[in-house]
């Protein structure tokens, strides 16, 4: 019963999430204006038919910029989470399975990175690197992959004690076989759930860095930096802040909810 409800929830939110991804991926289909075209005649126009979300102080279409900006945010988030997921899982699995020096090195490194507040490190690193979105992604990725590595390491350690892994040893199976056939498939689900729950946090982090001017380089559209720019004239053109803000909130809520729903499903 609980499982059924959780399943329906997952399907529902997944559709929403896919819709978001689709709309931002094919932004060109929905937005007819060029997000980078400035129009001196239409500065800070209120939402109207031609500009559904109005324009900013350079006369750029906010609607188009929200859609294209979503592409930047979502793509960067997915890429970052995916890369951290892959690196973290592989390293964690190897360290957990073989133990020894590799394991101790990993744990030491994890201790060091986790001993520091993630955003503080990210702000410092992104500030120093200063190369736009890549810099922001690297600065968040430094600590993020470690959380995946720790998770998959601890799962590998407990899987190693399971009877079926032990039995595989007695059946004379090779390390590679055990890792690929037994450990990886069985650890995928929990680590993947963690990846889902990280999406929202990562979005908050990335847009926060962009907001501070440590993310994308203007004029590239990105929600955080759009809000940061438009904040200066919020009194005259509040729509230039509201719509990207709304987009950010909706997106984060959808992905956070997806993560929660999957977690509920796994616990039910």
């Amino acid at each position, binding site marked *: 019963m609980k499982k059924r409800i959780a399943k329906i929830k997952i399907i529902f939110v997944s559709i929403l999430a896919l819709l978001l991804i689709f709309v931002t991926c094919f932004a060109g289909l929905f937005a007819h204006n060029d997000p980078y075209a400035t129009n001196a005649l239409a500065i800070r126009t209120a939402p109207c038919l031609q500009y559904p979300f109005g324009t900013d102080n350079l006369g750029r279409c906010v609607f188009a910029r929200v859609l294209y900006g979503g592409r930047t945010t979502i793509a960067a988030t997915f890429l970052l989470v995916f890369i951290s997921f892959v690196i973290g899982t592989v390293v964690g699995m190897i360290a957990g399975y073989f133990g020894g020096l590799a394991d101790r090195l990993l744990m030491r490194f994890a201790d060091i990175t986790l001993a520091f507040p993630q955003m503080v490190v990210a702000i410092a690193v992104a500030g120093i690197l200063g190369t736009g979105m890549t810099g922001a992604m690297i600065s968040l990725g430094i600590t993020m992959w470690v959380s995946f590595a720790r998770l998959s390491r601890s799962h590998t350690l407990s899987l190693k004690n399971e009877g079926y892994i*032990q039995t595989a040893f*007695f*059946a004379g*199976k090779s390390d590679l076989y055990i890792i690929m056939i037994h450990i990886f498939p069985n650890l995928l689900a929990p680590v993947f759930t963690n990846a889902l729950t990280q999406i929202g946090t990562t979005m908050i982090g990335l847009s926060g860095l962009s907001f501070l001017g440590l993310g994308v380089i203007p004029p590239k559209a990105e929600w955080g930096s759009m809000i940061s720019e438009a904040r200066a004239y919020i009194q005259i053109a509040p729509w230039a802040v509201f719509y990207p803000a709304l987009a950010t909130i909706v997106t984060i809520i959808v992905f956070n909810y997806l993560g929660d729903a999957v977690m509920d499903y796994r616990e039910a």
Partner: protein
Amino acid sequence: MEHILEGKELNKRFASEKGDTTALTDVSFYLDKGEVLGIVGESGSGKSTLLKVVSGMITPDSGDLFHDGKKYTGQKPRKTGEFLQVIFQDAKSSFDPRMPMERSIAEAGRGRADRALILEHIKKVGLDEELLSRKPSQLSGGQCQRMSIARAFYSGAGILLCDEITSALDVSSQAQVVKVMKNLKNDGKMSALFVSHDIALVSMICNRIMVMKDGRCVEQGEIGKIISDPQHEYTRKLIESARKQEIVNEVY
């Protein structure tokens, strides 16, 4: 005649928070072909550690292990798996939750694939062929445990090391597993170490028993002799406890 399995003066210590704890002290045993040796003790007696040492999952600090007279101390499960198989207490987790039973059993075959042989062993443990396509979660604990016995036989190893294999099961499932073990023993093809906390259960399956306490072997011998005339006080206590858990009934 050589013993099929023999351990001499096995010692093992574990480092823990409160300093070293001794898990095994000078434990020696032997097992002959076709025989079942019961290892009885309460929690912390070292009986499970002994089984792990014998199987190669952990290496003893000192002492030696022999299979058919050949020393195999220090060999890891990949190697020892050629002549012995372990059956664990938790039957369900002995099978990959994502695999159908048949694939899990075939895995134990060390490269050979012989479906007819698998079926033969499945029948021997009293299970249906149809169960082979199921996943462990779709089987009961007792069925899973009999599957793992079938798997151990399919691997071709002649020695079974059973670690509390019925203590997670219900009485009726336990009875089925016991029946299977008895049948296999009567066939004469199985030699086994049978670790359990339940001396009554052990008495139904084993030829000889070894009583363990605090990492030491306190008594070893023919089952009938030990039950009727226990020498050590601890053994006496165990038997007395077991008597009190027996069904008080003249008819049975």
